[in-house]
């Protein structure tokens, strides 16, 4: 079954998968126990001449124990799943490691718009850059994405990162992730958003530090990212790049 998962390139992907596998092993054991028991009973207690059923109504504590004890075990295992799960949920959804790479992702019918703050690091300034469907990030650094929508509910889904978050109009919802290797990945929309929902698909370019630096230099040629001063010739651009 492992092979069916898309390749994991996310720092927390293994944590998410870890809970999946924990649940998988526990439920597989229960599956074989219960279904196996049913199959065994079906064979062992099929009707045979001269064999009468046992009048066991489960109305004594001794008989009920056969049900209550497994239930207690189930509860204990459920608690284990929840406790382990809580840590992973907190890591992915309740905190964000500090970073200077922040991008705004706006869902709309039927594509993603990614807005970069540019070298000044602030949104709403002249050096912002908005592209359709192209998210460029460097490998090995945490990335913050702030999600919103222009119209209906969309969902930002990075299968290879085990990340998903609904994007809502009227809200700004932050997510974070960090890539472990460079590559090109897809960003499908995972919430029904209209007749163009199928095919609404962004592209995530995870680049090495060098390639990323080259991309930044190409998009903001006049500005060197390390400069603190602002240059008045910088202007915002819309590009299909």
């Amino acid at each position, binding site marked *: 079954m492992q092979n069916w998962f898309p390749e994991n390139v996310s720092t927390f992907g293994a944590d998410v998968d870890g809970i999946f596998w924990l649940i998988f092993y*526990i439920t597989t054991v229960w599956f074989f126990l219960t279904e196996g028991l049913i199959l065994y009973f079906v064979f062992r207690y099929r009707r045979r001449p001269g064999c009468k059923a046992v009048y066991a109504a489960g109305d004594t504590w001794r008989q009920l124990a056969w049900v209550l004890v497994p239930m207690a075990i189930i*509860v204990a295992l*459920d608690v284990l799943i929840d406790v382990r799960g809580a840590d992973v949920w907190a890591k992915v959804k309740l905190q964000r490691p500090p970073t200077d790479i922040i991008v705004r992702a706006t869902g709309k019918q039927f594509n993603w718009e990614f807005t970069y703050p540019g070298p000044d690091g602030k949104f709403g300034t002249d050096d912002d850059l908005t592209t359709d469907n192209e998210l460029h990030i460097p490998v090995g650094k945490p990335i913050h994405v702030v999600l919103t929508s222009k119209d209906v509910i969309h969902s930002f889904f990075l299968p290879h990162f085990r990340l998903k978050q609904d994007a809502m109009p009227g809200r700004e919802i932050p997510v974070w992730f960090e890539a472990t290797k460079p590559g090109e990945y897809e960003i*499908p929309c995972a919430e*029904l958003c209209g007749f163009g929902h199928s095919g609404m698909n962004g592209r995530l370019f995870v680049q090495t530090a060098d390639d990323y630096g080259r991309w930044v230099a190409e998009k903001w040629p006049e500005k060197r990212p390390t400069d603190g001063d602002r240059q008045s010739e910088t202007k915002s651009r819309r590009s299909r790049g």
Partner: protein
Amino acid sequence: MNDIAQKNHAHGNPRNFWRLYVFSTDHKVIAKQYLGLALFWALLGGFTAYLIRWQIAHPDTEAWGWGFIEPGVYNALVTMHGTIMVFFVAMPLLLAVFGNFLIPLMIGARDMAFPRLNMLSVWIFALASIVLITSFFVPGGAPAAGWTGYPPLSAKNEYTGGGYGVDLWLVALALEFASFLLGGVNFLTTAMNLRAPGMTWLRLPVLVWMQLIAAVVFMLSVGPIIAGAVLLLMDRNLGTTFYAPAGGGDPLLWQHLFWFFGHPEVYVILLPGFGIILEVLAVFARKPVFAYRPIIYASMVAGLLSFIVWAHHQYLSGMDPRLAMPFSITTIIISVPFGLVVLSIIATLWGSSMSFQTPMLFALGSLGVFIFGGLTGIFNGSAPVDIYIHDTYFVVAHFHYTLISNVFFAGFAGLYYWFPKMFGRMMNEALGKIHFWLTFIFFNAVFGPMHLVGVGGMMRRISNPTQYDFLKPVEPLNMFITLMAILLLVSQLAFVINFLWSLLAGKVATANPWRSNTLEWTTSSPPPHENFAATPVVHRGAYEYSVPHAQDDWLPQDFDSDKASKAALP
């Protein structure tokens, strides 16, 4: 005593066709009317499933018997498939058919407490059906915002490209809710007031308990979605802004209102299915239901808990992420009562003496399939895992395992089992067994691999998976699933043929072909209009099978052992 009361209840003996079959207040006729409607919708719902699967496996080709499926039409198909199956098949089949037919019979009454209200309920349901069908034919077509109808997509026509479809959908649902509300009032009042002498609460068959608990859960949970639907209708037609952020509203409001109802709703569907399974298992295993009282209490607890788990459908919705863990915990807790019920069902099989006629096969099949579905529920209930599998085919596979096990496997078990009582004839056993095995095999062939499709990341409600590179690996799975789905649908012909043929020419049924203890089997097949020649008097619970030292392996609820032994005295 009860005889006098029930004679007050007599409503003459209608002889003309219209009063007998169309405008009838007889709960048995009403149950059959619901059955006809539910079977019609099941066929239509199955056809939508065929088209959906065709498009997924062979995108942008012409489906046999239909043609090309555009993306907007595809969205309407998935919307209508879900809506039809949940509200127009599952609810009428499990609650209205079996509840209406069986509750008065099983408690020893002549009819429901409010027969005319009962007739009104089925007519409102018929009206809801007409309204929903109409949505296919209005400009803009059927609603296409998913069976969950999330705004803003559902709130503005320019987002879906639709017209009146969503409005008709909302009205149809509101009518359906009204119909089942009235039905619930009827079921509960009937059980409270019209039980035969000796039929104490704890002698009631489990099925009756399950119907009552389901009725209470439904009636307490449906209010918020009715409110939500009214608000959505207002947003769509009166310019209000309940769900529109620009006007100060919140799309999440709909989600909370919907799922506050939506989660209890799945237990409303589930519990009657469990009731059917338990009745059939007890009879064909010749054993009492194991842990009868704990099962009832556990089901009540589960019904109660179902009101505090709803936001596990909304972990990723944008609601405060800190709410995820509390709802994960409540979701875990609810597995406790259900675990008790399922384990008790298995324990009922221990030490039994099973015979495997069609109703029993479907009951066992339902149990086996449900266990699998219940286990995959644990994946979905875990918030971190849900980050990945939310809105993928893993969820789809999960709820088809839990829903189909209940609606179709348990529903078929009930139909094969009570067909003799309803129609006075036996269904064909060989054809029934063929139907079971084909259904069981093809069902698992469709929805088993679907878990892998979900794990592969395929999102829900997309009409063309080939548009995504990362979904290439699941293409062969999708094609296999579609083929199996077509075979699954075709296999249902075995049931349709059996049902229709048996109605006309099946072997005439005796009063109690299954040697069951419950009261409906003490009267003729089918029962007369007044159900019983004389009001039954109940002496014991419903599950006295294989009582030690008894002459037979069954002991009907109304059998007067005192009278019998006195009669045997010289």
